[in-house]
């Protein structure tokens, strides 16, 4: 392993310490050191917006903490859900008296810990609404959409939910709008190389040289198929086909596009993919309202990329345009 780490068991502690030092103008450490809080939170009279998830996906989740986006984020071990206590503490830090919406991804651990945190918060009289993201197309067939995992579409869910809350909407409206955002998202990942949890010390899955895993998950979960690595043009076409076939959007729909690297893919290759992605989306009769290309939601040093397409309406466009102040460039 060629990594910048100290004690492999303390990777998350060390990450959080450095993060807070770098961005003291935007975030602060919560009372619980596994919670990152926006500097302006809690905002009295505003619905609090929180998320949480395993570490190793930086800038997700902590990098989206900030004004008009997430008020607080629960931090888990690498690729492992935060504790119920951390989710609960994030909810408390975000509570401005109007309730808190928890926008998280569909994973077994997160589901359990959020469920327990909601109970703990309810005991204290904090009203919690939840939305669980399930935008990863290849993680279950369309008829079992509720089983799909949440991936980079979560960023759009946070952006829309955060903007809606910032506009002063009540809890139920913030929840419903964030739900609409994630319902309008479809994502796919393609993996070219695995990643290693430092405490484990060896790659946690294999991708043979010259092959790729189409439909890979954010932790290396196996995808739809393993096949020979193709040109960027062909890979981008496959990604668009899988996402857009599942989406089934009517002609003329406006969309937001997010192309994210998985950690070890150079930015230039993401632009190469986006060149074809833009063409494919337009060829389907869709209009691109906005494109994001960068390392928005990574998986340690995995080689690969994800594509997320969110269908927009006037409300979502307006909310997407709201300026945010968080450390991830968005």
């Amino acid at each position, binding site marked *: 392993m060629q990594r910048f780490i100290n004690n492999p*068991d303390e990777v998350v502690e060390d990450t959080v310490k450095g993060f807070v030092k770098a961005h003291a103008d935007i975030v602060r450490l919560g009372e619980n050191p596994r919670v990152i809080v926006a500097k302006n939170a809690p905002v009295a009279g505003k619905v609090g917006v929180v998320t949480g998830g*395993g570490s190793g996906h930086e800038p997700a989740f902590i990098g989206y903490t900030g004004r008009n986006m997430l008020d607080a984020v629960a931090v*888990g*071990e*690498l*690729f*492992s*859900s*935060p*504790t*119920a*206590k*951390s989710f609960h503490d994030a909810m408390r830090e975000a509570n401005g008296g109007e309730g808190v919406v928890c926008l998280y991804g569909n*994973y*077994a*651990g997160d589901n*359990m*810990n959020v*469920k*327990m945190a909601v109970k703990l918060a309810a005991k204290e009289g904090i009203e919690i609404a939840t939305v669980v993201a399930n935008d990863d197309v290849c*993680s279950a067939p369309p008829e079992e959409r509720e089983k799909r995992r949440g991936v980079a579409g979560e960023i759009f869910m946070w952006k829309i939910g955060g903007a809606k809350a910032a506009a002063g909407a009540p809890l139920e409206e913030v929840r419903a709008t964030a739900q609409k955002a994630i319902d309008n998202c479809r994502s796919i990942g393609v993996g070219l190389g695995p990643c290693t*949890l430092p*405490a*484990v010390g*060896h790659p*946690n899955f294999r991708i043979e040289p010259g092959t790729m895993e189409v439909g890979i*998950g954010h*932790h290396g*979960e*196996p995808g739809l198929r393993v096949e020979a690595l193709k040109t960027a043009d062909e890979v981008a076409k496959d990604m668009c086909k899988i996402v857009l076939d599942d989406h089934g959007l009517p002609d003329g729909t406006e969309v937001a596009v997010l192309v994210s690297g998985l950690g070890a893919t150079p930015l230039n290759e993401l632009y190469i993919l986006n060149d074809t992605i833009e063409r494919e989306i337009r060829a389907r009769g869709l209009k691109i309202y906005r494109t994001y290309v960068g390392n928005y939601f990574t998986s340690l040093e995995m080689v690969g990329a994800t594509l997320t397409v969110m269908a927009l309406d006037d409300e979502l466009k307006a909310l997407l345009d709201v300026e945010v102040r968080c450390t991830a460039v968005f």
Partner: protein
Amino acid sequence: MQTFENAKAGDIVQALAERIIENRAYLSEIDGKIGDGDHGVNMAKGFGLAAERLKDKDASLAEALETLGTVLMTEIGGSMGPLYGVMFTEFAEKIEAVDAIDATAYSRMLHAGLEGIQSIGSAKVGDKTLLDSFVPAVEAFDAAIAAGRSFAEALEALTAAAEAGRDSTRDLVAKIGRASRLGERSLGVLDAGATSCAIILRELSGGARARLR
């Protein structure tokens, strides 16, 4: 009637933590075949923390289980933190007020832990999870007592059933969690949660059996 004393039986949890720490690499290795490969790492971290806090405390079994459950629930996270966290805190709550633990109290404890797990998770027997060890173990314990066997014999039946249940996961397709994405590819491998659960039940029941009077 056979019973064992709650007071000072916290040592059972210390021994349990030692077994889990010994099995750190093994649990991670089997988890790595169909999961993230960090089961042993996270389990050893949680059980180790609890053991440290219990050191020289002369705790009762109920107190030790409560400490372990709380550490797992509040400091470990993932899926195993809440599942085992709930299980151990439910165990602790059920025996808290019992000085001499008999088979009836032990069975109540097991059932409360099982219900705790089922209240937060959605797995069923056959889904290739820790329930495949836990459910048959509880059933075997209750059946042995109902058949008029002693507490000691029922504890042995419990351990044997947990291990048979663990072994059954080799032939199961994962239906829940990360491994479920593998479908048929999850066949032929033990489930890491069922394996750690069998270790826990063996240590707990072995410790109880050694203290029976």
